[in-house]
């Protein structure tokens, strides 16, 4: 029982991480039709900013130091994402091949740049002590950082839902996911929403970057790109452009990965997720939410 509970909570924690990354990817593809292969570097940029700022605040106690550095990571990740849209993506709307090439190129370039400046070795981040400890529930020792990951993902989910349901920009995004040309034909400059959605995606990915740093207490140049692969799978399973579908898919993928790794064989988690993707694509090609994958 305690093992199952531990696997479930850690699986949900993993799913939370995937959701934070995939929600931005899903909105970006749904609204703009952009397959953003550079999404992983928003995680890397936020993580490295956190590490860099934290390393410059040596005299400050750990908790405020981490919080200040995390905030800096989120701001830089968000601004970086918005600039990516404005400078690189905007001139290429409607040119899908070029967009893919430029996002892949950006991902490779930033990873190479980070490696060139700070090396390929992981850099250690001092996380607040409590996050490295465990809480015992029904005999299961649950790492505390998982609670933070889950709680943060739930808050982000509700915030995104509120944004999409209760604001005019959210209305424009939901309509734009369905029919971008018709939104324009109502007199709305949909490009402003593009930048906003990229910034929101960058913020969510930045949050994932901060939480991943909390979990691993390190940053390394490859962490963003390795996480984003599973986020893409989550997006396809959830249905492109759907936040709720993405949330459900992230939970399922996180749990399947954890259960398979423990109950089948270590390493089978990744394979089981790919199998799950295949099953969903055959049985429900539009993903869980029904958007066409």
């Amino acid at each position: 029982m305690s093992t199952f509970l531990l696997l479930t909570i850690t699986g949900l924690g993993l799913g939370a991480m995937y959701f934070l990354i995939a929600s931005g990817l899903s909105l970006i593809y749904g609204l703009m039709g952009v397959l953003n292969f550079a999404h992983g570097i928003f995680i890397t940029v936020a993580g490295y900013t956190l590490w860099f700022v934290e390393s410059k605040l040596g005299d400050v106690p750990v908790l405020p130091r981490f919080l200040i550095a995390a905030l800096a990571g989120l701001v830089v990740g968000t601004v970086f994402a918005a600039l990516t849209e404005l400078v690189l993506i905007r001139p290429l709307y409607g040119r899908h091949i070029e967009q893919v090439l430029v996002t892949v190129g950006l991902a490779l370039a930033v990873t190479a740049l980070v490696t060139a400046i700070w090396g390929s070795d992981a850099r250690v981040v001092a996380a607040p002590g409590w996050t490295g400890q465990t809480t015992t529930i029904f005999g299961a020792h649950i790492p505390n950082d998982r609670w933070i990951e889950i709680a943060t993902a739930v808050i982000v989910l509700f915030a995104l839902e509120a944004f999409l349901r209760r604001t005019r920009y959210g209305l424009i995004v939901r309509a734009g996911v369905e029919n971008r040309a018709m939104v324009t034909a109502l007199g709305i400059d949909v490009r402003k929403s593009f930048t906003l959605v990229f910034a929101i995606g960058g913020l969510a990915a930045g949050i994932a970057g901060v939480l991943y740093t909390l979990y691993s207490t390190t940053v390394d140049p490859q962490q963003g790109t390795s996480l984003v692969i599973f986020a893409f799978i989550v997006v396809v399973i959830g249905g492109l452009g759907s936040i709720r579908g993405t949330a459900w898919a992230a939970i399922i993928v996180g749990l399947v990965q954890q259960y398979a790794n423990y109950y089948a064989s270590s390493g089978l988690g990744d394979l089981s997720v790919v199998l799950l993707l295949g099953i969903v694509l055959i049985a429900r090609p539009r993903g869980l939410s029904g958007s066409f994958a």
Partner: protein
Amino acid sequence: MALLSIQDLHVYLGESHVLQGISFDVAEGGVTALLGRNGVGKTTTLRALMGLVDRRGTIRLAGDAIEHVPTHKIVRRGVGYVPEDRDVFSTLTVEENLRLAERDTEPRYDLVHELFPELRERGKQPAGTLSGGQQQMLAIGRALLNDNRVLLVDEPTKGLSPLLVTEVARVLQRVSELTTVLLVEQNLGVVNRVARDAVVLDTGRVVHIGPAKELLADKPMIHRMLGVG
């Protein structure tokens, strides 16, 4: 002066030269019908006026050139658009569809609800669950919400029952009292009832311009140009 003036308008869709230098004017007030057989470029003409397809030529709205103006700014200059397939946002409610279309500080909900009382009753219903006729009402209502100078309406009676066709014709008549309408329509009964002028296209070219009633009274010409009658 014409409210809308189109000169030497060309549109290429892929390899196809869909509009081959069409020119015509839309006078202020009333309904100008854009007629022609299937595939002659009527819908493309409206899409070109809206800036939804790449085009070449001159388009003037009340004397101002708009051929290089992006779609959203054309709309803000007072051009409303009711597309052929309605294009309501199916996952949004009726209320949300209307709210999205609001541009004016005082959107004309009174007019929309007077013409289409059902839209008020079905405000919370997702637009995708409406019938074809109700979706058409929503598409027209969305365009009427703002005080447009001209409405481009593309086949509003397509796929509707005879009863609803009559209803749409009644609405178009009322709308033409409020603003200028450029109407693409296959149903000649509706055209006869609402249109003052007619422009006929054939294979991407204008082949006739004149009063709608005169055209519709000339059966041989109707048969030759439109293949009906």
